[in-house]
């Protein structure tokens, strides 16, 4: 099991991104929780920026959305804390709406998928950090 602090994505946002997948953080099997902080530093331009956090239980073939951060044209810092121990009944997995969370499912791989509309400028930056423990 790998625990610790990881970067899911850190980069500037400029041209529109269409569900740009980032390489995953791996070897997380056995983690009990994941605290994720999304720091969006707005510069200028742009319309929306969405960071979708996904996990995979099958080595990266199928990805399930577990958290979603939505930003527009203002700087913000948002967080979620997800637990792998949350008891759940049989529940259909569905795509997440704005600021949505699916708790109780943490696989050994976690990645970020970035989508944006409009053209951001002025040094607009998105920084996604996760502590797995």
């Amino acid at each position, binding site marked *: 099991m790998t625990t610790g602090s990881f*970067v899911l994505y850190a980069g500037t946002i400029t041209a529109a991104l269409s569900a740009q*997948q980032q390489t995953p*953080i791996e070897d997380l099997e056995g983690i009990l929780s994941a605290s994720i902080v999304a720091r969006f530093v707005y510069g200028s331009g742009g319309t929306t920026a969405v960071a979708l956090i996904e996990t995979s239980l099958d080595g990266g073939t199928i990805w399930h959305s577990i958290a979603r951060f939505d930003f527009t044209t203002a700087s913000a810092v948002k967080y979620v804390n997800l637990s792998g121990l949350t008891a759940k009944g049989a529940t259909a997995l569905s795509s997440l709406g704005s600021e949505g969370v699916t708790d109780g499912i943490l696989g050994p791989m976690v990645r970020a998928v970035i989508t944006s509309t409009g053209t951001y400028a002025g040094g607009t930056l998105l920084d996604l950090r996760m502590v797995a423990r």
Partner: protein
Amino acid sequence: MSGERQALDAALLDAGEDIIVRRQVQSGSNIANIDVTCRARVDTVGANEIAGTIAVSDLKIIMSPTEILAAQWPGGVPAYPVSNASDPRIPRITDFVIARGKQRQVKMVDPKIIGVDGWCRVNMVVAG
């Protein structure tokens, strides 16, 4: 773990020091630092090595990729084929090293990738 890297890790444990390798995402005044603490051997350049852009204040660094691999540094980057950049885990000349209390620009990187063992060592020169 490769034999070369294992031997280097043992040597650095005995005769090395901790440094921080920093990749900086910067646009204007907005900055995100991506740091990883690594074990390294840090030496001043020798008198006979001072030539061209190598200055007397530069430092030579020998480090193992072990800590970088363990930390999965620098984390998520655009997946291929969106990004066709070189291996993001290998330090670049746009990166920084914090050694002996000072942030220093990486001037030269020479990763050693040997046979089936793969990446087992990095030699760097950083600005003083």
